[in-house]
């Protein structure tokens, strides 16, 4: 009986040295979420460009110099940066299965993030009560669109964090909850990254 022997052409086979380590469910979820974050960057880029082009279109209303206060912007920046770091600490604690530490850091993240949203909302409400809303001028429309979209992202992030805290409380740190926590941390770090450009281009450059 003839045995079928399949001969492989030796110089056609791929080298075995670069096996892709990213074949597991975590890596695929990570990459997929990362690609979503990249698309979100592009949305923010479009909002930034719109804002930049309309920064001087004040239509007789207030300009960026009249409205923005650097003290508020600095406090917001510090809050969001700190929450990003505490989120990172929370993920590390979760990875080491130190539940108490994890909850402390993640709760701190929530407090700092909620303070950020609160201060931003009060800033928006102040503008609106003074009569300067998104309907006043192209400058204000693009400002509320850009900073408001970022604030909406942070708010939804807080909702996600709230749900994660619940899941971690009731399911503990399983491979599923840890994966979700890492994806949340990616989202939260990304929001701080976007904020860097907001406080630079909107607040700092708006005031000079």
């Amino acid at each position, binding site marked *: 009986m003839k045995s079928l022997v399949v001969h492989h052409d030796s110089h056609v086979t791929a080298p075995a040295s*670069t096996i892709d380590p990213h074949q597991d469910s975590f890596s695929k979820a990570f990459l997929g979420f990362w690609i979503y974050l990249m698309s979100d960057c592009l949305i923010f880029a479009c909002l930034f460009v719109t804002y930049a082009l309309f920064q001087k279109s004040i239509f007789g209303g207030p300009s960026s110099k009249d409205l923005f206060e*650097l003290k508020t912007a600095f406090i917001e920046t510090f809050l969001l940066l700190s929450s990003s770091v505490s989120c990172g600490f929370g993920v590390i604690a979760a990875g080491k299965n130190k539940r108490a530490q994890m909850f402390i850091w993640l709760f701190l993240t929530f407090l700092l993030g909620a303070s950020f949203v609160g201060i931003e909302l009060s800033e928006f409400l102040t503008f609106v009560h003074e009569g300067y809303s998104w309907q006043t001028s192209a400058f204000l429309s693009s400002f509320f669109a850009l900073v408001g979209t970022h604030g909406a992202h942070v708010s939804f992030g807080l909702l996600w964090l709230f749900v994660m805290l619940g899941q971690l409380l009731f399911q503990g740190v399983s491979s599923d909850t840890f994966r979700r926590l890492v994806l949340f941390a990616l989202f939260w770090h990304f929001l701080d990254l976007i904020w860097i450009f907001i406080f630079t281009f909107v607040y700092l450059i708006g005031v000079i």
Partner: protein
Amino acid sequence: MEHKPNIREMAEEWCGNYKSYVFGFAFSLMLTLCSFGLVLFWNPGKERLIVYLIGLALMQALVQLTCFLHVFQEQKPRWKLFAFFGMVLILFIIAGGSFWIMNDLNTRTMHEMIHD
């Protein structure tokens, strides 16, 4: 059958450690203080100040990409880095292109002659 990693493997891939976050926090805070300080205490002329602020912002973005998001510490093949550079390319095309087009349009309309 897809491999479902345990927490230790996931934590290793995520590459986070306390040092990188503390360093990232300190560096980011310092760059932020520099930016605010430049605006409050220095007056070199608007164009130069804007250039420095953009430079500081890009530096802080790099710091946060490295220390918080660990983009450059990925194992080969570096898919996330690839996606990131793809996004940056598209961003340059969209943002740069929009600026170019709108500035060009701006110079073509006689907007200086229109009074508010």
